[in-house]
C-alpha cells in the first residue's frame, strides 16, 4: 500500500513538474557552456526601442527612488517586480519579465521616458528562469513562482527518498543498484576532496 502510494506520487509529481525539470536542465547546460551560447565575456543584452514620450506624471515631494520607479511603472500599466537605479539625473528601471524584460529610462531634466524591451535570446531566457526565485518582491505572482520553486525543491528531495525506497523493494536490482549508488557517492566524495 505504502509502495503503491509512493509510486503514484513519484509519477504524478514528475509529470506535473516536467516543464520545471526541462527548464532547469536546459538552463544548467546553457550556463555550464556559457561561452558557446553567450560568448566570452558574455555579450550584453540587446535592447529594442518600444516607445519614447514625455512623462506627464508628478512625483510627490520627497519621493525616493523606489517610490518614483513604482509610480512610473503604475502609470504605464507595468507594475510588477523590478529593480531601479538613479544616476546623473536618470532613473533606470529594469522591469522583470520571463520572456521580454523591459528597461524604462526616465530623464528628469527633459521628462523623457524611454521604454525598451530586451531582444529575445534563448540562453539568456533560460538563465533568467533558472535564477528567478525568492520572496523579496511585494507581488503575489512573484511569491507564487517562488512557492513553485520551493515545491520543486521538495519534489527533488521526495523523488530521491522515494526512489531509494522503490529500489530497495526490487530485490533483483539491489546488487547492481548498490554498485551504482556506491560508485556515485565515491566519485562525489572524490570531488569533495580535490575541489
Amino acid at each position, binding site marked *: 500500500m505504502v509502495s503503491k502510494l509512493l509510486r503514484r506520487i513519484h509519477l504524478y509529481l*514528475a509529470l*506535473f513538474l516536467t516543464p520545471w525539470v526541462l527548464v532547469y536542465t536546459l538552463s544548467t547546460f546553457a550556463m*555550464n557552456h556559457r561561452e558557446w551560447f553567450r560568448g566570452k565575456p558574455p555579450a550584453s543584452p540587446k535592447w529594442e526601442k518600444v516607445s519614447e514620450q514625455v512623462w506627464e506624471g508628478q512625483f510627490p515631494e520627497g519621493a525616493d527612488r523606489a517610490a518614483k520607479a513604482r509610480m512610473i511603472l503604475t502609470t504605464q500599466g507595468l507594475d510588477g517586480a523590478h529593480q531601479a537605479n538613479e544616476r546623473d539625473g536618470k532613473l533606470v528601471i529594469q522591469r522583470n519579465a520571463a520572456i521580454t524584460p523591459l528597461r524604462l529610462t526616465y530623464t528628469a531634466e527633459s521628462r523623457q521616458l524611454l521604454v525598451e524591451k530586451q531582444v529575445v535570446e534563448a540562453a539568456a531566457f533560460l538563465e533568467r528562469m533558472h535564477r528567478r526565485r525568492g520572496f523579496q518582491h511585494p507581488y503575489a505572482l512573484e511569491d507564487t513562482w517562488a512557492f513553485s520553486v520551493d515545491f520543486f525543491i521538495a519534489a527533488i528531495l521526495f*523523488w530521491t527518498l522515494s526512489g531509494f525506497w522503490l529500489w530497495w523493494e526490487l530485490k533483483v536490482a539491489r546488487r547492481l543498484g548498490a554498485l551504482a549508488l556506491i560508485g556515485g557517492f565515491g566519485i562525489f566524495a572524490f570531488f569533495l576532496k580535490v575541489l
Partner: protein
Amino acid sequence: MTFHHLNRRTHLYLALFLSPWFWMYGVSSIPFSHNQYFEELDKAKGIPPWTKRAEIPFEQPVPDGPELRPFADQVVKLVGLSGSYGAYRQSPKQVNVYVYTFWKSTQVKYFLEEKKLVMEDRRFRWDHFFTGMHAKGGFDQGGWHNVWGVMVDLVCLGLLLWVVTGLIMWCSLPVVRGWGWVALVSGVVSFGVFLWRL
C-alpha cells in the same frame, strides 16, 4: 531483456548513480530560494564574515581590459593558493582576486596606490558550502574543475533521460494514464501561465 525492462533499469541505476548530485542540487536550492533568511540568521551571530590573514607588499601593472585572469595567475602563484580563481575590478584603485574551493574561500585585494596585497579568508558557512557547489560549473579553470563540468553535463543528460524513460514507463501503464494526463497538462498549463504573466 525487453525494451521496457532496459528502460526501467536505466531510470533506476542512473538515478542511484547521480543521487548525490541530485540531492546536493535540491538541498542547495533552499538557501538560494531563502537567501534573506539565511543572511539574517548569520548576521544575528555578529561574527565578521572575513578574517585578515596577511598583508604583502606588491607592485604589478594591471591590464586595462576586462580579461584579468593572467593577473590573477600571478597573484595566486605568489600567495600560494589553490582552487578555482578569477579576478574583478572592485574600483579604479582596487582589484580583487578570489580563490574558491568547496571548503574554503579566500580573497586577495590588490590596492594599487598602497602597492600591497591583503589576503582575507571567508568564514565557513554551510549554506555557502552548498550554494558554492550548486553554482560550480563551466570549463575555464582546467584540471579536475573541468571534470566537474563534465559531471554537470552528465547530470543534465541524466535529467533528460529521466524525463524520457519516465514518460515511456507512464505510457506503458494504462491504469495511470488518465490521472497522468491531468498531472502533465496541468503542469504545462501552470508553467505556461507563469511564462506569460511573470
